[in-house]
């Protein structure tokens, strides 16, 4: 064998051996579809319609076994009050799980309540909040054990059997959507009611809202009426500058709402 032939054959053998077995498999369309699902969940909140009844929080806590006594919640409603003398107040007493039954503002444990003269109220509105299920979620990025993750249909979940409760994800979330579960002793967050949406039902909060302030959709289905609103109308997201690409869209945002 000449040296030239030897070199040629060596290259052929090496090239052949370096092709991975998987590259020779025929591509099954079903597998490709499973890897690129046609479902991607998104949320739409119309703040104009919210009246702050807190039925969403009640339904969420009941559906997902979050204790009512603990001051944590997967979803909550914020009240924004602007006075005519240009002061701004925000509160969410007990995540608004019993609604807003007082006109005074809850300033927090150490500051008591702020009475506001009804004639002094300039504008006021309510904003429901929940996990934004970001496209690039910082919370799943920081998990040291791989216990929190984004599913293929775009929902961020926590593996309760694998979570070590270190709290990195709670710190990493720019929206404060995560908390430490008082009885399960793991990080917890909104799951978009994964057990409901995968069965074709609405989430507990969407279901409970009498005013349709909350809506859900599959954002890859352009014929979905809610997807059409997101695509065609003026919607915004919270904390866009963080670059997490939230999937909860808001109608009627103000710069104070973050």
């Amino acid at each position: 064998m000449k040296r030239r032939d030897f070199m040629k054959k060596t290259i052929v053998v090496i090239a052949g051996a370096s092709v991975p077995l998987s590259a020779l498999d025929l591509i099954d369309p079903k597998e490709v579809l499973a890897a690129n699902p046609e479902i991607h969940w998104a949320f739409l909140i119309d703040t104009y319609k919210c009246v702050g009844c807190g039925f969403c929080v009640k339904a969420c806590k009941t559906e997902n076994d979050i204790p009512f006594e603990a001051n944590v919640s997967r979803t909550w409603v914020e009240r924004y009050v602007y006075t005519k003398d240009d002061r701004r107040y925000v509160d969410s007493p007990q995540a608004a799980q019993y609604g807003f039954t007082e006109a005074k503002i809850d300033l927090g444990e150490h500051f008591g309540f702020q009475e506001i003269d009804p004639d002094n109220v300039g504008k006021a509105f309510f904003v429901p909040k929940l996990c934004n299920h970001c496209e690039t979620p910082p919370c799943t990025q920081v998990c040291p054990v791989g216990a929190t993750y984004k599913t293929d249909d775009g929902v961020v979940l926590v593996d309760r059997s694998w979570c070590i409760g270190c709290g990195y994800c709670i710190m990493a979330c720019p929206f404060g959507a995560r908390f430490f579960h008082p009885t399960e002793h793991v990080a917890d967050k909104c799951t978009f009611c994964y057990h409901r949406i995968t069965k074709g039902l609405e989430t507990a909060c969407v279901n409970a809202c009498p005013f349709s302030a909350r809506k859900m959709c599959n954002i890859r289905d352009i014929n979905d009426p809610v997807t059409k609103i997101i695509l065609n109308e003026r919607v915004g997201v919270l904390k866009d500058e963080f670059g997490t690409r939230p999937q909860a869209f808001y109608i009627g945002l103000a710069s104070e709402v973050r």
Partner: protein
Amino acid sequence: MKSHVWRPLFVVIGIVAAILLFRAFYVPDNFGSGEYGFMYSFHNKDNDEVWKQQPLKYRDTGKQKMHEYCGECHGGEVEIRTEDLHGTIPCENCHGPALDHPENPELLAIDRSRDLCLRCHTLLPYTTSERKRIPGIDPKEHNVDEFCVDCHNPHNPRLEDM
């Protein structure tokens, strides 16, 4: 180059190899990444199913599906309710989650408390909010210590029909 220069490199390579070897044995086989890659979705693939299997508590699918679950047996009531002022409120908001009703529980625990009505009907002076469209009362003055449902019919709340 002398060996004392290379030795730390070999130590580092050894440590990395040891970690990778430990990881290969320690991480269970069902761990993997999905569509969002290693950074965002490295997890136990069986856990999606765990979340899908959570029990349902609220069975009514709300206005969008016209109270499908409740309507199966209470169809007549559901039809009347969707017509009236409170028709947009899902049954389970006041009647409680259906769970496995009618088997378990046989009767739902209806919330008839004042607090439930006050969620919407507390008077808040917010003229720019949708709240202004809902009639409100001051809970400290309006028939304190009485149940709203003693006078008002939640299924037909029109004052002229009281």
